[in-house]
């Protein structure tokens, strides 16, 4: 029993990472006022690019992760062009990007035969003697490098948003683009940069999912994690550290499923798989029932900005 518990907890960070990075990436763009529903698609792009780069470079984890970040960033520019320059409705553009990415990754994955190829993944970095400690060892000190970097990354984004000049300007663009514009801040430039920066994290989340977690690329493998990340951002009230906490919650739920199976608990397989989605719904309902005085969303979230508007 205790072994199962330890195994369960030790497996959580790895499963939480995609949710965490995707949410934090979304927070960056949403704090600038852009509702990025394309996360599901960008994760797929990152996932495919990660596996592809891994195969092409004969196993370089670093290149694979970089590839997933860069590829998602590039695709996000397409999204940025649509919503910031062409002022397309952010929901439509987000959906279109998701389906574009789903189709594109499916197509490329099949044509270049990257799919269904097992990859070696990134090695686990055991931190020497610390990793051999009972209980604490496997839980905290036996992970791959990205997991170790997870908390610093989230904290860095938090610091960036709350305690830097650039972060202040980004938040201003998300709260009141007219005020930011009058202060001389480029609303368009800030939003495009936020979209791209956020996308790199989302892509990384996808790359981790395919190269490290599943060690394989399968079409559509993100299975809605992008949508869950969008819900997580709302649940985390647009704060990176809270998103991290929420991600651990979801990672915990996801990690529970194989442990229950191992424990011999006989539950209908597909209903178990449903749990993350039902959990997301439950979380959204629970949050809506709570009494919150004012919305914590960035005030201008989802609204395109035009300087000279005459009806």
């Amino acid at each position, binding site marked *: 029993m205790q072994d199962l518990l330890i195994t369960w907890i030790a497996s959580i960070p790895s499963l939480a990472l995609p949710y965490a990075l995707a949410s934090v990436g979304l927070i960056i763009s949403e704090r600038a006022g852009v509702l990025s529903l394309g996360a599901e698609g960008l994760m797929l792009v990152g996932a495919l690019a990660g596996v592809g780069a891994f195969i092409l470079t004969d196993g370089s984890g670093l290149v694979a992760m970089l590839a997933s970040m860069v590829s998602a960033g590039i695709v996000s520019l*397409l999204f940025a062009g*649509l919503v910031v320059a062409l002022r397309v409705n952010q929901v439509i553009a987000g959906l279109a990007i998701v389906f574009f990415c789903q189709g594109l990754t499916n*197509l490329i994955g099949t044509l270049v035969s990257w799919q269904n190829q097992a990859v070696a993944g990134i090695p686990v970095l055991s931190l020497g003697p610390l990793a051999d400690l009972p209980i604490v060892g496997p839980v905290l000190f036996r992970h791959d490098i990205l997991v170790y970097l997870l908390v610093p990354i989230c904290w860095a984004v938090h610091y960036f948003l709350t305690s830097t000049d650039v972060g202040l300007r980004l938040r201003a663009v998300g709260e009141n683009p007219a005020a930011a514009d009058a202060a001389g801040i480029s609303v368009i430039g800030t939003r495009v940069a936020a979209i791209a920066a956020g996308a790199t994290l989302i892509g990384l989340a996808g790359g981790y999912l395919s190269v490290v977690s599943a060690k394989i690329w399968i079409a559509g493998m993100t299975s*809605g994690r992008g949508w869950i990340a969008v819900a997580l951002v709302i649940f985390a009230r647009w704060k990176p550290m809270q998103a991290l906490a929420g991600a651990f919650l979801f990672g915990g739920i996801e990690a529970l499923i194989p442990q229950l199976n191992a424990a011999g608990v006989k539950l209908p397989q597909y209903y178990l798989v*449903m749990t993350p989605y039902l959990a997301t*719904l439950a979380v959204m309902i629970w949050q*809506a029932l709570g009494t919150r005085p004012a919305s914590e969303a960035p005030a201008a979230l989802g609204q395109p900005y035009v300087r000279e508007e005459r009806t």
Partner: protein
Amino acid sequence: MPFWAGGLISLSAVLLGLIISAAILALAGVAPSSLLTEFVSAVADPQSLRAVLNQSAPLILVGIAASIAFRARFWNLGLEGQMIMGGIAATAISLGKVGSDDARIGLMALAALVAGMAWVAIPLVLKVLLRINEIITTLLLNYVAQYALYDLLFGAWKDPADSFPHAAPFSAAERLPVIAGWLQYGMVVALVIVLLAFWLLQVSRAGFYLRFIHANAVMADHMGVQTVRIVGTVVLASGAVAGLAGFVIPSGMEGRLTQGFFEGYGFSGVLIAFLAQSNPLAAGIVAVLVATLFVVGQSLQIFYQIPFAMVQLIQAIIVMCVAGADFFVRHRLILQR
């Protein structure tokens, strides 16, 4: 600008989207000329024309379902989930042999309607009572429905005859009939729904109010419009029509409930509604065009080994081109601040 200029820009955008898609396909090994012949033969060859029309029926239905929901400012992205529930409900009636042979197909359709309505009711209630945004809730319920389907198809409803993950085939009485040897009855159903949607949106009083709800819900409230009642009714209708689509495919096309019958319809519905600007008559026409795309995609898959996901990609590219082009319709480009 003249009223037809907008249409012309949108049309060129669609063409641009198709050209981009053709370029991608060329990279994947399909010569543009062969692509063109595929498109032409899809409508010229009577066999494929029949396939296109049959494929149109469920597409019209999801297109209408999306359109009426969008007119109520409700992002019904759960079309696939509602289809699945509709299919499950209809199959339950079939497997349970409920009712007489003559009445059963009607009961199946009715069950599908109710199931689709019930599945959209969940996000609807969450939105009305708790103001939870329906984009995520409808999407999440798609996954829930999908896994519920798998649970049935891989478990209790697995066809004992061949042990494949699909349900036992429907009996002849449970299949939608074919008229005059070539026209699927599903098409008739679709046409009826188009006319009903047209009546609802353009002729009825509810449609009149809906225009205000869509444009400015606050103003509609001020004018005493029963916003919640109208939006609720329209959204439930949307779910019902999507559920009906989930009945038309197994009963009209595949003959049984299968694993992936719903795939691709969710976004196609949104695409159709978007291109048709939620106009029911236009949606009917756009749906036929999308059906052509589906049929072409199927033959690309068979003859050129291009995965069916290409169809999804082409649809997404077209949406992005048209959405982007709308900018030029709304704004005359002045190259200065």
